[in-house]
């Protein structure tokens, strides 16, 4: 374990910028924060919680030209990534590395390193503990930083991370026992603040039982098909492929799609086994909270809370889980109004 003084962030990233394109949280207009190519930064934005976009934008962009295939230029360093977002990347890794391998996604992943920043306090919309995805990572990460106040405690989780520390070793010093102990205190404190009423095992059990049809019917009536929850979600991987044909060229592109759109599952003859909106919403929640666990041994929801702020009918994951556990009809917690 190593220590990096906060005042040395800029120097470290400056040195890394010779090899990597730095992507970090940047403050935009009106307090919006987005992951963006920034160059070396001095510090993270004040009161930083989570950018509104996720790393999905970079590895699986909203639209992408597949043919003609482009070379992946450069290596990318992602800084200030919360554990929920890092877990979302892990989840998409599992999907895109299934056969047939998605070379577009995998090439970008190979050329990147992710520096996770654990959370000291949970934010208003967070429920990562629920899906076992935070507030820190135990395994399968490149580098993890914990904020101790004046410095970060740094751990490497794999060979890529260890190689990075070796390469830029001049900026790190060794961590002492007090600092390691401090990290554990911070982690436990954050975890305790999040220990709540939701229990994933209970949710899974609920989903295997017969949920009243009325519950789903009301969700079907509520949703208006804006696609926002899929588009903002860092784990969603559904996409549409089409060709742009002009007099001089053909380009094959893919773009984000949403499994809740009627056309997504519509067959060539017009038939759709999930024609009713409530069926599509039900399928989506099952995908996230039940089937993903079966396919990938990992929940499709990392508890980042972005869907709470994106839905124009107040239909989002945390409220869904709460309502399902209680056994009532859906009620929004109205956290982001």
């Amino acid at each position, binding site marked *: 374990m190593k220590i990096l003084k906060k005042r040395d962030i800029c120097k470290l990233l400056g040195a890394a910028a010779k090899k990597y394109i730095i*992507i970090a949280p940047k403050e*935009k*207009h*009106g*307090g*919006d*924060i*987005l992951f*963006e*190519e920034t160059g070396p930064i001095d510090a993270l934005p004040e009161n930083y919680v989570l950018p*509104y*976009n996720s790393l999905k*934008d*970079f590895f699986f*962009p*909203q*639209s*992408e030209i597949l043919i003609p295939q482009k070379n992946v230029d450069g290596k990318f360093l992602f800084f200030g990534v919360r554990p929920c977002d890092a877990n979302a990347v892990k989840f998409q890794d599992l999907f895109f590395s299934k056969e047939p391998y998605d070379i577009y996604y995998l090439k970008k992943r190979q050329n990147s390193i992710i520096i996770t920043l654990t959370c000291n306090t949970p934010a208003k919309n967070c429920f990562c503990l629920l899906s076992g995805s935070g507030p820190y990572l135990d395994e399968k990460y490149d580098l993890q930083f914990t904020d101790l106040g004046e410095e970060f405690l740094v751990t490497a989780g794999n060979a890529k991370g260890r190689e990075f520390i070796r390469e830029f070793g001049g900026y790190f010093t060794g961590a002492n026992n007090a600092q390691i102990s401090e990290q554990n205190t911070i982690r436990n404190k954050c975890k305790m603040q999040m220990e709540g009423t939701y229990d994933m095992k209970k949710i899974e059990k609920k989903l295997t039982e017969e949920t009243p049809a009325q519950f789903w019917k009301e969700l079907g*009536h*509520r949703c*208006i*098909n*804006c*696609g*926002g929850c899929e*588009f*903002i979600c860092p784990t969603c991987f559904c996409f*549409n492929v*089409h060709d*742009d*044909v*002009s007099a001089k060229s053909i380009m094959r592109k893919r*773009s*984000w*799609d*949403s499994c809740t*759109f*009627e*056309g997504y599952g*519509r067959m060539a003859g*017009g038939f759709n086994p999930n024609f009713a909106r409530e069926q599509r919403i039900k399928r989506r929640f099952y995908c996230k909270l039940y089937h993903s666990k079966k396919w990938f041994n990992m929940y499709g929801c990392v508890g980042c809370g972005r869907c709470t*702020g*994106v*839905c*124009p*009918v*107040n239909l989002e994951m945390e409220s869904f889980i709460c309502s399902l556990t209680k056994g009532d009809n859906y*009620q*929004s917690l*109205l956290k*982001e*109004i």
Partner: protein
Amino acid sequence: MNHTLTTCPFCGVGCNFYIKTEGGIPVGVVPSKNHPVSRGRLCVKGWTAYEFITHPQRLKTPLLRTGRRFAPADFKPASWDKALKFTAKKLTEILEKYGPESVAFIASARCTNEENYLFQKFVRCVLGTNNIDHCARTCHSPTVAGLARSFGSGAGTNSIEELASSKCILVVGSNTLESHPIIGWRLRTAVDKGATIILIDPREIETANFCSLHLKPVPGTDIALLNAMMNFILHNGLQDKNFILSRTEGFSEFCETIKKYTPEYAEKITGVPKDLIIKAARLYSAIKPASIVYGLGITEHTCGTDNVSTLANLAMLCGNVGKPSSGVNPLRGQNNVQGACDMGALPNVFPGYQKVSDENIRKKFEAAWGGKLSSENGLVISEILEKMLEGKIKALYVVGEDVVMSEPNSRHVIECLKKLELLVVHDLFICKTAELADVVFPAASFAEKEGTFTNADRRVQRVRKAIAPLNGSLPDGEIIVKLAKTMGYEIGPENPEEIMDEAAALTPIYGGISYGRLEKETLQWPCPNKKHPGTKILHQEKFSQGKGKFFPIEHQPPRELPDKEFPFILSTGRILFHYNVATMTSRTKILQREFPENFVQINPVDAKEYNIKNGDIVEVSSRRGGITVKASITPAIIKGVLWMPFHFAKNMTNILTNDVFDPIAKIGEYKVCAVRIKKYENIKKA
């Protein structure tokens, strides 16, 4: 990856998002989480707004017609120089031969404030006429006229975010969750917090899923319905007596008219049970704060202006104006229809609704712009079309609008256009109107220019350039400046920031608007000076005109009612996945996949009578023409009424609609005409 914050180019909510660009190409969108109106939300059109920008069909060069006039697509690419010179020459010839009243200009509610300011300056200074109008005519001209005469200001009274805190919302003639989804979010949130929604709409729209009360009147009977509500309120002493006494005039004359509109009387006209009318009246008058939200279901009638003033009457009767989370909220359709009106792209006013006929106002603009300005009110779109047919208007300049697809009675519109000696069009893609043009200029999209849009709650917001204009296109404002130069006139400045400075100096309601301020905040007009913070709520201490005015209004039936030959009412409107004439949304793959073609909604009882099954091809026809579409059988529409969206270029719904107009606002009666339906028998065998 770069992110550029801009305002959505679709509807009048004015959501903000960042366009993501990679290597100078737009690749996606992420909402602005902290934006005061959209708060991190977008509808599916906003989420996919990047895609049409790089569609292969984007116009790349100016086009000049060769060969036969009015043969679609008989065009040859031309250089900017050649096309501008040709246009300048023809315009000058026509002006010299026939005079300034022989030309007309249709500006664009899709273009920025700065561009619309330049358009009306061009029309007034270079062409020498006030014949400028735009598609506000087609949607909220009754709002401009109706609220102006009732309250003194023809714009929405409150701010969008306040709706979420309203305890009672009367939603009338608005399919909010499909046409203005992010305003629909406020309705949904209000209900989640315990509010009551009273819905007046002949269809089971999305809002019906969470309203407390749903009244389904026959289209075109809103005055009778609303008057009956007011009759009940007055009869039972439920009105706000203080407010009426201190803040309004014209009350006694209005009361006389209301007397006969008992709920029983209204039930006969509207088909709505009197108990529901009474319930609605009780709820709206008792629960505070109470808002009215309305859309084109109220305005697109031959009595549209009267419909709007009736809503104003109701709001004043219950004292629901000038207070937070109340008021009368018109849901403006286009991204910048409010702004295009504000900037004077109208035949009777300069920027800021300052009358063309007022000598002092005219002198002010003459001093600022130089030269003499016409004092005669110009023509509105429907009058422009009529004058074209009569041969009095020889040249039409259309920016960013497909009049053939959007005006009622499309076939008639085509006949009018064919009489022109010159038709000039700006657009991103070839549309139905552009197919008939003599000159087409390739315009740049919203992502390729700087400027501002003004949304439904009078909020001026920045539009920012994410990429350079594609393929040799130019922003519409730059095209018009170049054209003016070619004709020997300077109508600059050319820089959008400077244009706004000039407009603000001449427009009291925009007086305090500047790009410097807009970097840090959005500003709602009236904003008369640089220190003013903008205005959230209108008519708080007093109305813009002093006192609010009650208007005595009688029920007026629609111009064309069903009869034996055409036994159905046809009503038209929008769906979530497409935007107006779908120039942009039909070129977005997912949106086009969801709804690829036109359809007609028909009630199951009617369908059975006509032996129509779901998905059957049917012919729907009116006195003006017929189209074939797929039938969608649904109980969501009442018996005797058919409903169609107007988005689809193939099988245009507006072939059927009736070109009759409100006498004050001159809006077309899109919501009611008489049609018949039958199964389409003559399908050619393969």
